[in-house]
């Protein structure tokens, strides 16, 4: 029987939420790695039992954990992330040069075809890859070595590479995004990269349309249409119809065009989801109402989804990697909050239930659809 497994990374450990295809009754396992921050967990599309987790603390640094039995048991693999060559400098908050320093892994993106190949997006921004199941990690230095690297600067959360999207049709094409440098694309398997930020406007920058410096929060793509990308930027929800070569705004009638998450319905490539957040500094839902907004038109026109979500006195945030969709016939959507809730919808967003109420602050949510 089909089922789903929701992988929730939190400030104090990892949790796995499992259900059958009805998605009404859930089993919660965990915490795994209690007390450690789990920035991200993700399973291999090629082997559902293979799961990777990024585990870190300010005390003891970075670890990478690997499971080969669907999350029941874990083993630490290599945690040595060393930049290729001379690290060089990027811009610090005050504009002065600051040496590149590894801090943590924000995102793990397993290969679509090989369980032993995984990409890691790290802070300070760079992309690494393992081809031996995590036994060794090597930087793809062409990204950080791009000519604009010295002009990249950290966002409030650090200079993190938080989004990695592997093109399901062209294995040489990868999209990544960095806060606050922008989005980049490689068409040669990661050897060379180019910024893809044309059309982004960031009014906090001296040159609002500069080639780099944009605070991209997340990017999403539908597997059937890899040339169409959706982006939640610091402000503005954006869309590209040409693999990032240019972008246009689709914020439309959203109550706030600020937010972190964005995702695409599993079966409807023009149906996208965001969670508007009030900003610049509040970072909680407008009016104390937690609402997912859905567009069935690929952006521009949005409807509020609030059934089952708190509609008063709610001041949680939904962080950038904390939304995911399953691939069951009736698409499930999941998101986690800094208040420790993981909400799920088994009907495309029409109604929601809290799968769990009281986890530590949720940093990331991924979902596996199990045969």
């Amino acid at each position, binding site marked *: 029987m089909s089922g789903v497994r929701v992988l929730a990374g939190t400030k104090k450990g990892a949790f796995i939420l499992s259900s059958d295809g009805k998605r009404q009754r859930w089993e919660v396992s965990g915490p795994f790695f209690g007390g450690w921050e789990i920035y991200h967990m993700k399973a291999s599309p090629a082997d559902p039992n293979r799961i990777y987790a990024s585990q870190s603390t300010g*005390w*003891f640094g970075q670890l990478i954990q690997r499971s080969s039995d669907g999350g029941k048991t874990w083993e630490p693999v290599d*945690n040595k992330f060393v930049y290729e060559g001379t690290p060089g400098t990027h811009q610090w908050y005050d504009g002065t040069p600051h040496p590149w320093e590894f801090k943590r892994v924000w995102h793990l993106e397993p290969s679509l075809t090989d369980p032993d190949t995984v990409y890691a997006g790290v802070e300070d921004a760079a992309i690494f890859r393992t081809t031996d199941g995590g036994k060794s990690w090597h930087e793809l230095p062409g990204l950080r070595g791009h000519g604009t690297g010295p002009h990249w600067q950290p966002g409030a959360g650090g200079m993190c590479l938080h989004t990695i999207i592997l093109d399901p049709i062209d294995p040489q094409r990868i999209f990544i995004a960095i806060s606050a440098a922008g989005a980049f694309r490689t068409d040669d398997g990661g050897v060379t990269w180019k910024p893809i930020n044309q059309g982004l406007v960031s009014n906090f920058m001296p040159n609002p349309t500069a080639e780099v410096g944009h605070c991209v929060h997340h990017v999403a793509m539908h597997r059937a249409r890899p040339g169409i990308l959706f982006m939640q930027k610091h402000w503005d929800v954006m869309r590209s119809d040409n693999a990032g070569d240019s972008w246009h705004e689709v914020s439309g009638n959203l109550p706030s065009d600020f937010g972190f998450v964005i995702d695409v319905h599993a079966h409807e490539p023009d149906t996208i989801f965001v969670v508007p957040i009030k900003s610049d500094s509040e970072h909680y839902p407008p009016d104390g109402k937690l609402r997912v907004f859905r567009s069935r038109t690929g952006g521009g026109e949005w409807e509020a989804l609030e059934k089952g979500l708190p509609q008063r006195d709610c001041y949680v945030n939904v962080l950038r990697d904390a939304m995911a969709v399953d691939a069951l016939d009736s698409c499930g959507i999941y998101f986690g909050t800094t208040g420790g809730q993981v909400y799920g919808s088994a009907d495309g967003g029409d109604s929601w239930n809290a799968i769990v109420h009281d986890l530590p602050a949720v940093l990331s949510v991924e979902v596996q659809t199990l045969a």
Partner: protein
Amino acid sequence: MIRVVLPAHLRTLAKVDSEVTVEVEGRATIASVLDAMEARYPMLCGTIRDHVTRERRPFVRFFVCGEDWSHDMTDTQLPDAVTDGSEPLLLVGAIAGG
């Protein structure tokens, strides 16, 4: 035989209950104890000191016979009480954070 007491999180990571013991060839310093410990428990690499610079991570401290040795990792030989196993080397995680 040198006894080492790890912080709780690292004991869990290394799958050990309380103290660990290591043998050090030649001159015993904190650095050489860490070398021996990382060889025996490779999952600890990078958690106590940086992979590349070999510098102590800022929120980890070393205590020897009641004294803070955190700034003396490489040069000074550990006292006999530690090298003969009568006193442990303490690795302490800072009490900080939330």
